[in-house]
């Protein structure tokens, strides 16, 4: 038996392919949306992976340092370092801001790392060019996605930094490229006010009789000095000695240091389950909407194609064609349209959208398989209206009168 669907498609292949390409662009957007969600999750995981930490020690009862602000004293790491099971501990600060280079600026997550301790938690684990930070001030390692190059001069707050190293796939959970600078500089950047604000703060402090006591001449200077320094970091990243359970070490820190400690799994849950949850829901809604729109388009196209063949269907029925042959004709065409659309959509998502999209788009094979199955199912469902119309055709329509 010949394939009626195949012959019909070959007869009007131009119309079919053109329609399939249109549908494919829609499917491409749908696949890209799924890829954007996967990219967000991957960004979050990469952030955790690249930090090189097993535990995140943050301010008590906060979800810091990524989902909420967190401040702990910058000497806390020393006492944590001495606890059983802790291999390394390092301060870290995170500050998302606009980093300027000449006339342009780039949104980036500026990360303060403890200078002179390469390999410590928080450091970029590998570079693609240049070297790690070796000086205590004014050097930076930037992610390639920032667009900065070796030797570029960056401005963060009032200070200038030279890019000495480049790394790759070091991004925040929001996809912003990371720029690593020495911890002291980062602490200052978090805290530093402009000159007017500093002068105003000093004046207000001097006018406060509690701080400006004539009988205690050094008090005012001490208070102003304390106001000009930042003894806080956002978190202490901890690497566990092999042979120790992360949860046990975390419990010990919680108990003795009265700080909140997250393991890798908990931090992943915070990032994926809370920080990007709203974005994920938005993307899920877009996926649902796009799927419904795709189904509606396929249904409309197949229905229109079927209506255009009503006379032929009546003739086919009159000459004894079984219903299942007619159902097969319509359903096969619908699936073929979906297949063309899927191939075009996959190519569009992979070769056109992913490379130029400003956010990281991760197209996983399993998502493609699920997408393929969804397209086939949608096409089958979408053909039901057309099949219903075809089965209702009276073979008597082929006979005049």
């Amino acid at each position, binding site marked *: *038996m*010949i394939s*009626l669907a195949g*012959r*019909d498609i*070959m*007869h*009007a292949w131009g119309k079919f392919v053109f329609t399939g390409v249109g549908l494919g662009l829609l499917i491409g957007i749908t696949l890209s949306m799924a890829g954007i969600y996967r990219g967000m999750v991957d960004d979050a995981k990469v952030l955790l992976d690249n930090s090189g930490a097993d535990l995140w020690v943050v301010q008590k009862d906060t979800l810091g340092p990524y989902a909420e602000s967190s401040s702990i004293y910058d000497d806390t790491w020393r006492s944590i370092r001495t606890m059983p099971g802790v291999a390394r501990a390092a301060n870290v600060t995170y500050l998302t801001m606009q980093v300027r280079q000449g006339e342009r600026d780039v949104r980036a997550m500026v990360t303060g790392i403890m200078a002179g301790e390469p390999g410590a938690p928080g450091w970029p684990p590998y570079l693609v060019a240049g070297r790690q930070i070796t000086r205590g001030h004014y050097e930076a390692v930037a992610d390639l996605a920032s667009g900065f190059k070796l030797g570029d001069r960056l401005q963060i707050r009032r200070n200038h930094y030279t890019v000495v190293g480049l790394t790759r796939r070091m991004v925040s959970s929001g996809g912003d490229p990371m720029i690593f600078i020495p911890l002291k500089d980062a602490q200052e950047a978090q805290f530093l006010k402009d000159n007017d604000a500093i002068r105003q703060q000093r004046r207000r402090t001097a006018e406060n009789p509690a701080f400006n006591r004539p009988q205690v001449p050094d008090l005012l200077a001490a208070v102003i000095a304390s106001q000009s320094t930042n003894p806080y970091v956002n978190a202490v990243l901890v690497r566990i000695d092999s042979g120790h359970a992360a949860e046990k070490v975390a419990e010990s820190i919680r108990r003795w240091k009265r700080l909140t400690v997250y393991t890798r799994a908990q931090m992943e849950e915070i990032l994926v389950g809370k920080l990007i949850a709203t974005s994920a829901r938005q993307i899920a809604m877009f996926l649902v909407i796009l799927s419904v729109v795709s189904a509606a388009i396929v249904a409309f196209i197949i229905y229109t194609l079927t209506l255009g063949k009503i*006379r*032929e269907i009546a*003739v*086919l*029925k*009159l*000459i*004894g*064609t*079984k219903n299942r*042959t007619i159902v097969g004709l319509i359903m096969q065409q619908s699936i073929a349209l979906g297949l063309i659309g899927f191939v075009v959509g996959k190519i569009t998502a992979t070769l056109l959208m992913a490379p130029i999209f400003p956010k990281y788009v991760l197209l996983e094979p399993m998502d493609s398989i699920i997408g393929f199955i969804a397209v086939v199912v949608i096409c089958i469902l979408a053909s039901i209206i057309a099949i219903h119309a075809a089965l209702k055709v*009276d*073979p*008597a329509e*082929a*006979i*005049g*009168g």
Partner: protein
Amino acid sequence: MTGKGIRIEGLRKRYGSGDTAVEALKGVDMQVAPGEVIGLVGPSGSGKSTLLKCLGAVIEPSGGRMILGDEVIYDDGWKVTDLRALRRDKIGFIFQAPYLIPFLDVTDNVALLPMLAGTPNAEARSRAVELFKSLDVEHRAKAMPSQLSGGEQQRVAIARGLVNRPPVILADEPTAPLDSERALAVIRILNDMARKLETAIIVVTHDEKIIPTFKRIYHIRDGVTYEEAGEGRGFE
């Protein structure tokens, strides 16, 4: 010999019920022998199409009897369970317009019927090509319907009606879109094929050009048929 033509006795068809019921056929009698081509003539609304649909097992009559070949197919109710198979295997249709499937080439348009009946593709195509020789469209076997002239399309449609060698062929105004010359050519072909394949052919028409060619004509008016000897020029 593919059967003994078709015979219908007291065929009735009523549409609707109660006060709004319309009696479209009021007891039609008709017999067409194998190899015979008869005309069925009547004005619009006389019941021609209803009779054709009943004969074609497309609609169910309200009463009467139909015998196709040796088989009683209707006797106050269908006596066959698979009407599609009946239409496919035992009734050939030729329509007012050719209604060829536009996405199948000429050969497959004709071969589709035997294929639907389970005949292997090669054999079905070979049967189609055999008919094309008789109908003088062999050279167009690979063409698409849109590439054929009106006359060629109608000859292919005739081949489709004949390909399963049915005992009866129902032709619904097959010459309506054709000029006199082509219309007569089509009737000549139908006569030739009826004799060759011993098929009974009922031609519904009100085409004045071809009416004189029938040896027997059934007139239908208000749901009743009247047999009349035609001029019978035929194409002996």
